[in-house]
């Protein structure tokens, strides 16, 4: 796995090939296996975003293929699909069989199982089963009912190695009564996804990080614990239930600003920003770098990096400092060298680096960094502006002196869109944080 990859999927579910990153749900996977050992039909239900799809995709499928189902062997053929507008077509496509063949009778799926090799089993996964009710509303009641009958027949026919697993939101459980036979089956084979415990949630954060190599878990453990604890408190208070990665991402974004205020050092805030980011949250408005002008957000830093980029590439700078541009400021692997001192890059979003497009910019792996220096990039910006505008750094750090160099600023910044640059300059004079 590439260390630069985010080990968290964000809002999409984990996929089967990402099982090595799927943590904190081992008990739930065992529960699913126990239920499947008793019956070949299982409905995994839960609230929206509770992790139903991930549990089945990255939890159940790999567990079956590892041979963890008692008496189930390890030869599994998986047909996974969403009902969409044409559930029968989706099933046929997932099986690689003609639609007409599957749909000709309620035994269509039973007969499709004849393609299985000796000792092989077929796992049919209907993800987001609730989509079926949309089909029904669209007027295809018979089609939806026939599809359900097909599934039930295959799951309960003796001697057929077909297992049916569906995922569905709990709000649609009541609607299942419209299908004859389905409620009875659901009563017998259903798994309601529980909330994760504190330990499980912490594991779900730390595990992928450790495996993905993105951030050393030991370094992050303290803050991950704080975040997990706060998330669980929010869950207990039911103000903002946090039980899934999707909810964690939203929660982390909402809480980031508040949480940032409890961390007084730039370094701590950047770790927080990293954590929010790997949780899938939005870090743009997070204040991370503190200086004379106040706190600067990730978004502001990114804008200033763009400005800096243009300055360095500008003919004005090149003419005045033909040698300095390469001597004073150069890239060496993952290290930024300023006046002979080496600094690791500050840890921000990966696209932060992509946007500024440094020549020979390395692919940044978070694990390559040993410390965080947010003031480095700020100091670099200030120093370069001071050099370019011919203004002493001390003056520049006093926000009021910025206006006295407006002509020089315009000369440099005039190459950019006027309004946006003015906004950027203003943002550093009137910081939000």
């Amino acid at each position, binding site marked *: 796995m590439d260390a630069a990859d985010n080990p968290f999927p964000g809002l999409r579910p984990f996929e089967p*090939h990402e*099982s*090595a*990153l799927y943590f904190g749900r081992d008990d739930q996977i065992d529960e699913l296996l126990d239920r499947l050992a008793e019956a070949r039909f299982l409905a995994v239900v839960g609230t929206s975003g509770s992790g139903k799809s991930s549990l089945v995709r990255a939890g159940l499928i790999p567990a079956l*293929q590892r041979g963890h189902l008692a008496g189930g062997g390890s030869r599994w053929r998986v047909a996974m699909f969403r009902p969409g507008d044409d559930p029968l077509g989706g099933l046929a496509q997932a099986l690689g069989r003609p639609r007409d063949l599957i749909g000709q009778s309620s035994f269509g799926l039973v007969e499709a199982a004849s393609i299985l090799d000796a000792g092989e089993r077929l796992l049919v996964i209907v993800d987001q089963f609730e989509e079926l009710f949309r089909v029904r509303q669209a007027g295809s009641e018979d089609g939806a009912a026939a599809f359900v009958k097909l599934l039930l027949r295959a799951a309960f026919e003796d001697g057929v190695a077909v297992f049916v697993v569906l995922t569905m939101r709990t709000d649609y459980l009541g609607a299942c009564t419209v299908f004859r036979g389905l409620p009875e089956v659901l009563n017998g084979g259903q798994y309601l996804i529980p909330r994760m415990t504190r330990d499980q949630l912490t594991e779900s954060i730390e595990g992928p990080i450790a*495996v993905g190599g993105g951030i050393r878990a030991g370094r992050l453990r303290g803050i991950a614990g704080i975040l997990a604890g706060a998330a669980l408190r929010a869950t207990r208070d039911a103000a903002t239930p946090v039980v899934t990665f999707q909810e964690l991402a939203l929660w982390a974004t909402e809480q980031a600003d508040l949480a940032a205020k409890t961390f007084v050092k730039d370094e701590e805030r950047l770790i927080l920003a990293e954590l929010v980011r790997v949780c899938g949250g939005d870090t743009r408005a997070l204040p991370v770098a503190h200086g004379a002008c106040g706190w600067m957000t990730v978004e502001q830093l990114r804008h200033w990096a763009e400005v800096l980029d243009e300055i360095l590439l500008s003919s004005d700078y090149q003419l005045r400092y033909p040698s300095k541009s390469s001597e004073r400021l150069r890239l060496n692997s993952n290290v930024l060298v300023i006046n002979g001192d080496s600094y690791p890059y500050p840890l921000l979003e990966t696209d932060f680096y992509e946007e500024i497009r440094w020549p020979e910019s390395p692919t940044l792996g978070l694990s390559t960094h040993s410390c965080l220096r947010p003031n480095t990039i700020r100091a670099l910006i200030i120093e370069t502006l001071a050099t370019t505008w011919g203004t002493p750094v001390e003056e520049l750090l006093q926000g009021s002196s910025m206006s006295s160099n407006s002509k020089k600023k315009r000369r440099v910044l005039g190459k950019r869109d006027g309004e946006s640059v003015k906004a950027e300059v203003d943002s550093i004079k009137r910081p939000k944080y």
Partner: protein
Amino acid sequence: MVLYWGLAPQTWVEEQLSELKKALGWRRARPFSAKVIYVTTPEADDKRIYRTREARVIAQFGHFAPEPIAPFLEDLKRARG
């Protein structure tokens, strides 16, 4: 760590390797000092050509011979210092 590949399909091997990778995320986890996949009968095309970056692969479809195991044992000795 020795992964013995006999009757199981290749997906089983891939899943076992995935679980080994996942083991790095467990608390108090330590990397394996040596990993080998021992591929043996029944002989099959996918087994004959199987290679992975995750572990040494030793294929023996006939009688057991100790020589191909030697590099793995060397890995173990090196790990133990």
